Structure formats: structure tokens, C-alpha cells
């Protein structure tokens, strides 16, 4: 323990001697991840060159599906729209999320605790429902729009929620929480001595943030930007609900067009779209590695990290709080209120007496319908248990990326970046094919395990990035000390690093839990009586028009997560 307490910038490579578990352990992990990630993707690759379903007796191999998609102007329009969405998510969500994280974790911003809880909400609400919330509140007939037009005597609202810029703005603002949580977890774990030093030498709050805190969490910023880019191309629920009215297509909603133009599900072209997105994801992971590896990652959380006083915002304290409140109003409170309101009324819109339309029937309908009430329980089981197992798996993969021999580490990094690139609906189909065509998986398919496995694969990029960021913050000093004291590599990790990592792990488990509660598209093909889950149920109901049930189900979703989150905080999961 002779290292000086402040500067602990150890490039990741420097702490990667050939120790840790035996190399074959890493190879085993690599093989397992490769099988889980590559089998659905290779199946899609094969399908992308076939004229018929891969299981059909008659099929031809060729590139006709590629030429169909690549020469379709509608595809390029959708691709361009997706790029706009992804760009908006990066340029809106990353700066806003990072600044909010700084304000909430490092300064004396008023109501910081309340803001933190509110900020979580959009993450765990299905985007379909979030879209419905925006329509009910800010759409042409929305209740906020109604108040606004009455107040200013307007014929219609000066804004729209259906145009491409509007959808991009909404997508950007509703993804701020992802960046916030990601970056704030990292910031909380920072050794505050550097900030303290800057403050003592006279730097203002803004200066501390831009020249000390943000550079220290740079890996987390890069990861969140890349995550936004990935999610931007995969985003489905919001454009599904908001894009129809003006015909704004993105890549995921373009998939519907493929099916209806041929009349039968067009697996070939669908697989082609998946391949294009996989190429894009590989590029994104490559960029991310280039951006983070060159500068090394920063280990700043050690045995001796201490927390300084919160920075004083001074006269900016209240203006910043008001800006935060305005943001929360627009991106969280108003749409959530819309969802809640929708769940409590039979109908809405100008001229409807909302008090008269008030009803609890939508909730009663859920309780009386066995499949809907079962889906609430199943979702909890998958998210709690499956989410817990997922965190353990993701931790192993993140460790592999950090510590395995170079080749294995790089391969793991690329593999782990892939699954979220494929739109959930296609990934769900590919995983469904595996579950029914691979004999060993057949018995698993009618159980909840199949859904948990599918979620685990689909959320691998997100989870691994969460845990890589958490691991990157942990200094190896303690583990090295344990090793010097004679512990085995595994023992040293378990006794020295794991305890320090615990808050990060629990935070990751919470975030994964929320994603699993909300996840929808990848389970659509795996549903069967007894294994219904909320998210997929919502997609199903959207088709036939049961918006009442959707709103009630999602309000339950919100309640579940707020309850779990408050419980977790009460038990000291996220120590301040």
C-alpha cells in the first residue's frame, strides 16, 4: 500500500498480468458467450441468404433479399430517420444526463433525492406506453394541450408529437435517465479528493465539473454515448406509437412493411436488416474501444476513497432546480400522468367529462383475467431471479474483458456488444427458432427460463457495460495486497474486490431488473399460457385495441418498480 492516495490512473493493461483464474476458465467463458450470442446471429446470417424459411424443404441460396432491401427507397428513408433519432439521443441525452448526474451527486442542488427517483421512471415504462402517455397529455387532443390552447385562445397547439423532430426530441429526453444512472453510479464511486483539491485551489463548480469530474468518468460517458447510438437504431415502441400518424418510419417499424408487402412473413429481408444493424454495432464497439482504450481507464475507487462536502451552487442553486423540474415535467411527469389518467378513465379528449368517465374497471379487468394477472407475477419472477443470475453472468463477462488474455478479452468485448443491435422482434424470432430446433433447448421452451435466457442474451451489451464501468472504478490495490498476503487469485477477488464492488453490483441488478420488467419484443414468440410477461402482453394488446388494459398494466409496472426501488434504497442499496 505504498501508492500515493491521489493519482491512481492505472491503464487497464498495466494490471493485466497472466493471473486470475486459469486461462482455460476464460476460454470456457468465451466459448459460452460465443454460443449464446453467435447462434442466433449465425442463424440470421444463414437466413439472410435464403429465398424461403431456413426450415422449408425448398429454398435457394442467393442475395435477392439483400438487393430487395438495399434498393428499397423506404428502407433508406427509415435508415435516415433512425440515424436522426440516434443522433438526437446522443446529443441530447449524454450532455443532459451527465450534467444532471453531476448536479445530483456532487452539489447542493435542492430536492436531489426526489429528482433521482423521478428520473428513473421513464426507464422502466414500456416505450409503447410512454408514447401513449405523450399522446394523452401533449397530443392534439391531450389534456395539457387542451389547457394550453384554452389559456392562450389558440385553435391548436403550436407543437406536435408526431413529426420526426418531435419524436427525436422525445427520444432524446426520455433517454436522459439511462445516461444519468450510468454516469451517476460512476460519479458516486469517485474518490472525491481530486475534486476537493480543485475546489481548494479556487475552481468554481463549473470548472470542477468540466476539468475534473467529467474527465474522470470519461469511460462511462463514452459507453453511454455508444449505448445511445445502439439503442437509437433499435428503438421501436416510441416510433410505433408516435410515427404512424405522419408516416415516420424507422428501421424497426420498417420491418412491418416488409411483411405486408409480400403478404407472408419475409424472413430473408428481415434477416438482412438484422445483418446491416450488426455491422453497425461492430463499428460502434470498435469506435468505443478506440475511444476508451487509448487513454486507459481510471481506477479511482479504492480503500481510501473519501467523500468531500457537496459543492455549493450559490445563486445558481434555484435556477438549476427549476430547469431540472421543467425537464422532469416534460419528460417524466406529464407523460406518466397521461398513462395514469388513461388507466383510470373510459375515454378522454376534448369534451369528455373526465370525472364522469372515471373508473376502476380497467384494473378490475386485469385482476379478473387470469393471463393478465399471471403476467404480473411472471414478470416479477423473471426480473428478480433472472435479473440476479444475469448480473452474475455479466460480471464474469466484464471481468473477462478486463482481465482475460488479450485476444479473448477483445473477442468478448465485441461479442458482448452485438445482441442489442438486432431489433428485438427479429432477435425474438431467432431465439424462438433455436428453442424449438435445438433438441437440448426444447424442454426449456415452455418455461419461464426460456424468457429469462432470451432477456439475458438481449441485454448483454447493456449489462456488461454497466459492470465494466463499475469494475473500472475499483482499484486493484486491495486485491494485490491480498495476493501478497498469500490468497489465491479467486480468493483475493472474492475477499478484496467483491465487497468494494457490492454497491455497484446491486445498482446493476436494480437496473437490469427494470429492463427485464419492461422488455417486450424478444418474448413475443416465446409466450405460452403460464409464461406470459407484461411487456409482450402489452404489444399483443396494442394490436387488438385494448388500450385500457395497456394503461392499467403499465401503471402497475410503474408501481412495482417504484416499490422495489424504494425498498432497495431503504435497505441501503445505494449509499450516499
Amino acid at each position, binding site marked *: 500500500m505504498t501508492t500515493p492516495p491521489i493519482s491512481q490512473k492505472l491503464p487497464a493493461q498495466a494490471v493485466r498480468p497472466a493471473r486470475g483464474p486459469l486461462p482455460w476458465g476464460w476460454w470456457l467463458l468465451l466459448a459460452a458467450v460465443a454460443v449464446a450470442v453467435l447462434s442466433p446471429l449465425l442463424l440470421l446470417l444463414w437466413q439472410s441468404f435464403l429465398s424461403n424459411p431456413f426450415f422449408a424443404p425448398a429454398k435457394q441460396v442467393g442475395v435477392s433479399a439483400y438487393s430487395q432491401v438495399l434498393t428499397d427507397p423506404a428502407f433508406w428513408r427509415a435508415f435516415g430517420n433512425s440515424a436522426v433519432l440516434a443522433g438526437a439521443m446522443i446529443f441530447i441525452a449524454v450532455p443532459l444526463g451527465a450534467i444532471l448526474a453531476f448536479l445530483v451527486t456532487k452539489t447542493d442542488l435542492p430536492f436531489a433525492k426526489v429528482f433521482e427517483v423521478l428520473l428513473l421512471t421513464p426507464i422502466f415504462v414500456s416505450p409503447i406506453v410512454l408514447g401513449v402517455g405523450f399522446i394523452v397529455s401533449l397530443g392534439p387532443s391531450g389534456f395539457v394541450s387542451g389547457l394550453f390552447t384554452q389559456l392562450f385562445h389558440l385553435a391548436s397547439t403550436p407543437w406536435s408529437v408526431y413529426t420526426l423532430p418531435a419524436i427525436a426530441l422525445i427520444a432524446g429526453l426520455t433517454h436522459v435517465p439511462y445516461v444519468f444512472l450510468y454516469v451517476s453510479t460512476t460519479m458516486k464511486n469517485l474518490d472525491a479528493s481530486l475534486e476537493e483539491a480543485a475546489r481548494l485551489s479556487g475552481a468554481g463548480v463549473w470548472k470542477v465539473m468540466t476539468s475534473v469530474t467529467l474527465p474522470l468518468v470519461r469511460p462511462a460517458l463514452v459507453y453511454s454515448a455508444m449505448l445511445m447510438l445502439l439503442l437509437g437504431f433499435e428503438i421501436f415502441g416510441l416510433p410505433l406509437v408516435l410515427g404512424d*400518424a405522419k408516416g415516420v418510419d424507422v428501421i424497426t417499424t420498417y420491418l412491418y412493411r416488409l411483411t405486408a*408487402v409480400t403478404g407472408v412473413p419475409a424472413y430473408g429481408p428481415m434477416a438482412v436488416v438484422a445483418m446491416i444493424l450488426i455491422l453497425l454495432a461492430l463499428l460502434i464497439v470498435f469506435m468505443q474501444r478506440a475511444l476508451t482504450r487509448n487513454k486507459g481507464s481510471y481506477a479511482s475507487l479504492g480503500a481510501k476513497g473519501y467523500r468531500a462536502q457537496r459543492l455549493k451552487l450559490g445563486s445558481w442553486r434555484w435556477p438549476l432546480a427549476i430547469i431540472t423540474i421543467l425537464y422532469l415535467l416534460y419528460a417524466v411527469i406529464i407523460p406518466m400522468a397521461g398513462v395514469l389518467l388513461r388507466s383510470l378513465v373510459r375515454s378522454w379528449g376534448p369534451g369528455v367529462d373526465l370525472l364522469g368517465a372515471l373508473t376502476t374497471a380497467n384494473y378490475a379487468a386485469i385482476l379478473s383475467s387470469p393471463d393478465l394477472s399471471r403476467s404480473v407475477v411472471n414478470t416479477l419472477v423473471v426480473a428478480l431471479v433472472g435479473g440476479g443470475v444475469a448480473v452474475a453472468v455479466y460480471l464474469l463477462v466484464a471481468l473477462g474483458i478486463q482481465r482475460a488474455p488479450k485476444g479473448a478479452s477483445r473477442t468478448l468485448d465485441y461479442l458482448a456488444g452485438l445482441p442489442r443491435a438486432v431489433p428485438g422482434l427479429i432477435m425474438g424470432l431467432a431465439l424462438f427458432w433455436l428453442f424449438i430446433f435445438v433438441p437440448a433447448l426444447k424442454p426449456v421452451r415452455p418455461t419461464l427460463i426460456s424468457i429469462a435466457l432470451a432477456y439475458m442474451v438481449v441485454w448483454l451489451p447493456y449489462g456488461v457495460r454497466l459492470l465494466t464501468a463499475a469494475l473500472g472504478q475499483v482499484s486493484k490495490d486491495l486485491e494485490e495486497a491480498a495476493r501478497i498476503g498469500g490468497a489465491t487469485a479467486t480468493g483475493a477477488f472474492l475477499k478484496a474486490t467483491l465487497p468494494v464492488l457490492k454497491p455497484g453490483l446491486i445498482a446493476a441488478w436494480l437496473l437490469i431488473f427494470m429492463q427485464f420488467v419492461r422488455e417486450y419484443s424478444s418474448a413475443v414468440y416465446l409466450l405460452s399460457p403460464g409464461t406470459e410477461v407484461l411487456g409482450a402482453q402489452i404489444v399483443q394488446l396494442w394490436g387488438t*385495441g385494448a388500450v385500457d388494459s395497456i394503461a392499467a398494466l403499465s401503471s402497475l409496472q410503474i408501481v412495482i418498480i417504484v416499490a422495489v426501488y424504494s425498498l432497495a434504497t431503504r435497505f441501503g442499496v445505494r449509499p450516499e
Partner: protein
Amino acid sequence: MRNPVLLARPVLSLLTLSLLAPVVHAQAVPNGYPAGYSATINAAKKEGKLIIYSSTDQASAQPLLDDFKKEYPFANVEYNDIGTSQLYSRFLAEAAAGTPTADVLWSSAMDLQVKLAADGYALTYASPESKNFGPESVYQNQAFGTTLEPAALIYNKRLVKASELPATHAAFAALLSGGKLTGKLATWDPEKSGVGFTLMEYDNASNKDFGAVSSGLGKAQAGLYSSTGAMLEKVTSGEALYGYNIIGSYALLRQKTVPDLGMKFWKDGTIAFQRVAIINKATKAPNTAKLFLDYLLSRRGQLVMANQSLIYSLRSDVAGKATRAVLTQQVGGTGNLRVIGVDKRLLDNLVPATRTAFLNLWRKNVKGQ
């Protein structure tokens, strides 16, 4: 005899008797069925679970499932409520993989159902109920129309007075082109929805004013949607005033809770499709599957549809809220009800050239492309 348990005994046995009575009764062959049908019933008793894949909501189907269970208490039914396109994909893949799959497929995607039959996936079965249906509802004794799904003009009663409603397609087209309804229309996107395509294509084939209506939809910048839920929501909230070619049974169901939702059927030609049922040829429960199909087609089943599920019954000998008789009267006579037949013509819709021809017309009229 003070012992309450002993006292309870005769009561209990009475109870048991009364519980058993309908069971014994149900074993009888339904009225009008051949005597040989009892063999099917007896064989069904030895079969395992009946798996149904259906695009009908669980909530709408539940009364039918409950009543079926009442008629055949031994039947063990597993009901899967799946979207039309996923239903087709899932069945095809499972059939190829040889894993357990649906015994009965009941779907609104008429074209895909007939394609499954034409591709050899359907069991051929001469149902004793077939005689109660017209030739437009039975394909090769393999695919069976079970319901009537009229396409309605829905409107928001708060914003549209009954007197303003267009009486004919031509009047509607004029209204659409008048400029007052810009952005206030919701209809199907046939490029994104299979059911939407079937409806719009048939509308074009059977309605001389479709060209004017579709051009009008274009002029009014109608929102094009891929789900009934979205369109109902647009109209009930008043964001759209009218919804064109909306599935009548879904609108009827929504009217139960939203009194502001209006629904009108055209007197100069209302189109309708049918939900089609087929039995998987490779089913392990062929007899239970036959019982279920016959139940859907039976007067008893259609009565439950018309009065509890609020799905328009296909049979004409059924009385109630959502029946063929009520609909025939609303459209102004049998001649005005144009039902899409369960037949080979649907397969033409799956030929890319035919499809493209209609979609090009659609794009030209609605999008000016």
C-alpha cells in the same frame, strides 16, 4: 343425527347429482348431428390437451371457452392469444421442428389461413355444421369461416352529429376532399398490416367509389395505422373524427365503455371478412379439435359470440346483439353485405405482382407517389 357432517351428507349427494346431471346430458350427440358423432365424442375423451392459437383476445374468447367446457367437461383446452403474423410464423416453424404446436388455428388473417390449407397443413373434415353455411365460408372442407367482421365507419359522437354523417361512399369521398377533415382521419396502412391489406384490396375490388374515397383519404392526409387499437384511440379521443374500415366487432366492444364512439355501416355496400379456423393435419387431438370447430360453427357457439363476445355471428339463425341478421338490416339488405369468401382468390393476394399492383394504386391515390 345431531352430527352436522351426517346431516350434510344427503345435501352433498344431491349437490353431486345436480353437478353430474349436465355432464351426463352433454355426452349426448348435439341436435341434428349424425348418430356416429358419439364416436368422435368418445374418442375425444381419451385425447390429451387441445392447443389453440388464435388472434382473438383472450378476454373475448373466454365466454366461448367456458361454454365449450360446459358442453364437453372432459376437454382440456390451452388457449394462446397471438397476433396474426406471429401465429403463422410460430405454427410453421413448430410444425417443421416437430415440437408441440397448435391443434386448432383460428385467425383473422384469412389469406394466411387459406395458404396453410393450400400448402397441406390442414385436416380435411366434413363438419356436420357445414350445411348451415354458404359456400363462401368453407374452403375444401379444410378452412372454415366462423365469424362475420364488417368494416365500419367509426366516428366521434361529440364532434360529429348524426345528421352530418355521409350516407354513401361517394358522399364520404366528397366530404374528404372538402378540406374540412384534413388530419382528422384514421385508416389502415395496407403496406404495414396484412388484415388492412385484405380489407382495402377487397374494398377496391367490390366498391366502385374506392378510387374517389382513397384519393380523398390522401387529400385529407389521413393517418395510416397498423393496429385497430391505435385507430380506436384516435377516434375516441377526438384526434380523428372518423375511422375508415375499422373492424366492427372491436368497435362494438369499445362502445360498451365509450358511449361517444359511433359506428355506421354503409348502405351502398359494406365489406366484411371472416375469422377462419383450421385444424392442424398433424394434430394429436383430432377429435377434440373437431368438437371445438363444430362448437364454433354451432348455433350454441354463435349465440355466445353474438351476445357475450360481441363478435358478429356468421350464421343467420342466431338472435342477439351482434348477429348477421342485425347487420343485414343495418346495411339495408343482404345484397349490400359483401363478404370476403374463404377461397382461392385470397391466394392471389399473396402473389407479389397482384399485391404490388394494388399497393401502387394505393400509393398513387393516398400518397401521391
